[in-house]
């Protein structure tokens, strides 16, 4: 009961601060608001766990996670390198390049587009629980199988968005190219690719979180003795939930950074789009 009251009070304080911050329209609001929100969340968690007497092998308090995090930096780094740098990034790049190539190829013909998109959607619905064991069987336990899982997962969102983007030109913009008698390549590079960028980045951004999840979860189905997914599943078995959460923190940080990086590139490349202008 006490825990509940405390949680409500803390939540109220945090939210009020954010309200004030948003009203003030201060420049710091961009980074301060999510920070305050996050801190509020953490505080609620800490107090809830401590006052609610939740067992640390079910949900450890943030403070304990922080301690473990600092104490396990070498492990966390090795896992990060294995899973994110090798598995996720490789797969992401492969999947993105493949999706982009297929999109451009398919975009040339209405026939292929009609054929490939539904089949691609079918592929997107293959759950990782099914694909991961298959790729582990084919490519072994190390990171190549994880990269393959990631590649398959990110392929479709990027494909669909790129195809949609390549077509997101107004009739007039296309007609202009036609009056120039522009061939395939000029109208691809000068009209369709730039017009597609906002969509492509939409796909690329969503794919960042997919890539991470894919690489981590695929390790549940076989891995070397290093990697974030390996550590998470092993540590759950060992009831080392603080280490599990430390890995989750790494995942969240890496994911947010990855997403943020994509958003930043997007901002620089699609500054002209109405959604970026204000």
């Amino acid at each position, binding site marked *: 009961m006490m825990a509940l009251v405390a949680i409500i009070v803390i939540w109220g304080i945090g939210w009020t601060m954010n309200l004030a911050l948003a009203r003030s329209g201060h420049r710091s609001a961009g980074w301060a608001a999510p920070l305050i929100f996050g801190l509020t969340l953490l505080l609620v968690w800490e107090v809830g766990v401590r006052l609610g007497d939740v067992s640390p092998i079910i949900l450890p308090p943030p403070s304990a996670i922080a301690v473990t995090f600092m104490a396990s930096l070498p492990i966390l780094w090795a896992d990060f390198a294995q899973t994110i740098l090798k598995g996720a990034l490789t797969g992401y790049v492969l999947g993105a390049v493949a999706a982009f190539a297929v999109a451009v190829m398919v975009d040339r013909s209405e026939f292929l587009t009609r054929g490939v998109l539904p089949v691609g959607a079918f592929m997107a619905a293959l759950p990782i629980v099914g694909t991961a064991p298959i790729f582990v069987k084919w490519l072994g336990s190390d990171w190549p199988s994880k990269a393959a899982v990631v590649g398959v997962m990110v392929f479709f969102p990027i494909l669909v968005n790129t195809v949609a983007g390549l077509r997101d030109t*107004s009739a*007039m*913009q296309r*007609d*202009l*190219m*036609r*009056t*120039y*008698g*522009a061939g395939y390549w*000029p109208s691809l590079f*000068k*009209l369709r690719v*730039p*017009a597609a*960028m906002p969509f492509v980045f939409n796909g690329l951004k969503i794919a960042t979180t997919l890539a991470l999840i894919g690489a981590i979860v695929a390790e549940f189905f076989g891995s070397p003795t290093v990697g974030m997914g390996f550590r998470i599943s092993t540590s759950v078995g060992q009831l080392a939930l603080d280490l599990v959460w430390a890995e989750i923190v790494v995942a969240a940080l890496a994911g947010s950074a990855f997403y943020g990086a994509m958003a930043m590139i997007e901002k620089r490349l*699609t500054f*002209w*789009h109405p959604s970026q*202008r204000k």
Partner: protein
Amino acid sequence: MVTSSDPRFFENTPGEGPLAGPGAAPPTIIAAKSVDLTFQTGDGPVHALKDVSLDINKGDFVSFIGPSGCGKTTFLRCIAGLETPTGGKLTVNGMSPEEARKARAYGYVFQAAGLYPWRTIGGNVKLPLEIMGFSKAEQAERVARVLDLVDLAGFEKKFPWQLSGGMQQRASIARALAFDADILLMDEPFGALDEIVRDHLNEQLLQLWARTEKTIGFVTHSIPEAVYLSTKIVVMSPRPGRITDVIESTLPRERPLDIRDTPEFIAIAHRVRDGLRAGHADD
């Protein structure tokens, strides 16, 4: 209803086309015979063009005028090969409009500016030059020249949304002029401009036309503009969109601005106005 003079004044004799020597009657460049176009919409077909026949000769300056919705844009698009007639025959330089388009015969100014938002004004004007493979130096030179022509020097680095409506319109005119196509098709290019700029651009356009012998198709809503610029004025009428009058201008090719006060000018303007009014009365 005003019955028009026969638009098929010169018969289209393809063999004679662009090859005809000096002194001969100028060759027919654009020949439309009974062109029909029907759009299918949710609630029934719209007859946008009906039985449109018209010949345009090399070096002609043809204005299209008519109430909104009478098919001016549609016809211009047919000429440019952007729309395919559902009936009749249309040839350009003896080819189909499609082929002519692929041969880069057209400079087209759309009714709305349609600049690419990811390119600066300069970049937009440069676009056709890049596509047609002009050298870098030539590109820069031409961009500077046409931007100057439309009074946009100094705005080269701005993005389209940072310009007013009229400035965007001028940029799109510059873009169409940059690469010197033989046929210029302009859909109300000066609609968003004030009289002074308009007069200025009208003069510029006439000079350009006189100098280069381009063939120009020009949609406008302004009767004086149509009369001032054209060798041939085509009056159209809606529902279904059709030609109701074709007026061959008797004005000399050399046209100072004050030609607009001559009785000849006023007479032509009068005829155009009558034609227009008749088109409206049809409704």
